[in-house]
């Protein structure tokens, strides 16, 4: 069967909202603090079968959201992994019931620092508790259970989504049949933490940030845009930037001495300016901190942590030009799987796109994911 056959888009979709953790049943966070009530944004595609055995949970990266495929009414931009999810695609909605869940701490429909604090009736700001990847997954657990699903056929995601995949496998091994962590790491390296810290400092250095209490006064957009620009640099590669922009300059002369003249400068500014329209600066702080603190091995060997997940089958994918989440981090996951006697497949795909490859190198990923899921379904 050729990839690309019978590929159809999802069409119009709507984001749904799951509310839980009401008083007396709040979610206890890793920090010990309690959070509730909690809203979690999610979308679903395809049909859940009668024995509820065909559900796949997709998890997103730092700035992603629940809108992974299809279109929202009145919006021309498809979901962030639309080319991977749909009829005949890698996650085939003719066969599987696909769920994409947002994360707590975010600002895309789920409870986060920009949500109203029920105690003060004002936005949380920095009163929002620090959250972790494990907390995000714990919240998603309640969503999945509310859909009547006791075992997920697959949990998949790239970058921070991959961290959630790994956390799912360790936190709820009995609920996960297969796991596909892509372009990710079981713990953040100093270099990865360093880039995130520069982003956070850019936000906090913006006078508009006001210790996080900027709601209603104008957001720290300059700082957040700079954070996003740094992020974008780390998501691309030397080669992909050279191919996309080269040293080309804009046609009109810059208005001021240091207005952007190279195309790459204009591109970064454009991405930064667009980002602030859809993302909350405090969420950026909270989520990057959760990513930086992520260390699944928790000081012990990762293979020991994986022992409980030995029934899960893994497909680990890395990209050769990804220097933000280098392949060695994926190999560490593979190594731990092997030492824990976990059935694992690993591929290191050729791509020049850098970390962004997991979003754009569809064809190769589709091949591996489709065959992996078919093998699992055949068993």
């Amino acid at each position, binding site marked *: 069967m050729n990839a690309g056959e019978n590929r159809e888009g999802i069409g119009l979709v709507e984001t749904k909202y799951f509310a839980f953790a009401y008083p007396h049943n709040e979610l206890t966070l890793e920090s010990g603090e309690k959070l509730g009530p909690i809203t979690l944004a999610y979308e679903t595609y395809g049909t859940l079968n009668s024995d509820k055995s065909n559900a796949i949970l997709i998890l997103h990266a730092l700035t992603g959201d629940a809108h992974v495929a299809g279109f929202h009414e009145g919006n021309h931009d498809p979901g962030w992994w639309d080319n991977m999810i749909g009829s005949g695609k890698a996650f085939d909605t003719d066969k599987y019931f696909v769920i994409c869940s947002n994360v707590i701490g975010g600002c895309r429909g789920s409870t986060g620092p920009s949500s109203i604090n029920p105690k003060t009736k004002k936005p949380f700001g920095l009163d929002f508790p620090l959250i972790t990847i494990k907390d995000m997954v714990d919240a998603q657990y309640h969503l999945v259970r509310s859909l009547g699903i006791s075992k997920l056929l697959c949990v998949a995601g790239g970058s921070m989504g991959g961290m959630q995949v790994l956390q799912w496998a360790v936190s709820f091994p009995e609920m996960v049949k297969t796991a596909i962590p892509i372009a990710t790491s079981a713990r953040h390296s100093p270099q990865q933490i360093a880039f995130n810290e520069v982003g956070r400092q850019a936000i906090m250095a913006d006078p508009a940030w006001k210790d996080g209490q900027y709601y209603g006064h104008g957001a720290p957009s300059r700082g957040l845009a700079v954070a996003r620009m740094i992020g974008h640099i780390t998501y691309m590669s030397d080669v992909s930037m050279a191919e996309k922009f080269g040293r080309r300059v804009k046609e009109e002369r810059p208005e001021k001495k240091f207005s952007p003249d190279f195309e790459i400068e204009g591109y970064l500014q454009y991405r930064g300016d667009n980002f602030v329209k859809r993302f909350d600066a405090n969420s950026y702080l909270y989520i990057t901190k959760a990513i930086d603190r992520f260390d699944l091995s928790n000081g012990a060997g990762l293979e020991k942590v994986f022992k409980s997940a030995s029934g899960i089958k893994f497909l680990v994918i890395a990209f050769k030009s990804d220097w933000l989440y280098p392949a060695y981090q994926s190999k560490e996951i593979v*190594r731990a799987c092997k*030492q824990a006697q976990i059935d694992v*497949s*690993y*591929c290191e795909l050729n791509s020049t796109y850098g970390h962004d490859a997991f979003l754009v190198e569809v064809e*190769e990923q589709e091949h591996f994911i489709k*065959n992996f899921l078919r093998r699992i379904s055949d068993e």
Partner: protein
Amino acid sequence: MSNNSSIPDISKIKLEYRVILNLIPAGSSVLDLGCGDGELLNLLVKTKNIRGSGIEIDEQAVHKCASLGISVSQQDIEGGLSDYGDKSFDFVILNQSLQQVVKLEAVLKETLRVGDRVIIGFPNFVYYKSRLQMVFGGRTPVTPSLPNMWYDTPNLHFLSISDFQAYCRTRNLEIEKAIYLDGNRTIKFIPNFFAQTGIFLIRNQK
């Protein structure tokens, strides 16, 4: 891959693979180093219900393994097998890949550490037709089991069946079984002269 779930017709499998299939009892755990497109592992899974995984460095070959539904890691075996604990597998296969690794001794030592038994298949460099080509033609031999010209061969080590037997003696490796092939037939008589391929089942001497 329409027929990959059907049981293959044993008589149609090439002899080299049939020999290896016969060496491995049903239900064994098997690691295939340099597993290529996964054909041998797939046969082992389908006919012997083994628990198998492969290691292969070539992306296109890994791609094909995925089509067959084989568990495979895209990795280089030169760096050793430190991902695996001692005796993690009943069998480790090094078929037609031993002669291509740089650190042959280190890799071999690792296979004997992670596998209870090791199956090694390699082309016999002193097959009689090779000898004729060298002695009378004055050329580096090209045979069905050594099909490449001198300038594009992936092989780094050129060994004979006798070389390998002598090597096993010096390294205290027990040869449990040895099968010698010339194309589609087995060779019993002076294999170092008449066989193109040697397949050995070895283990560390107890």
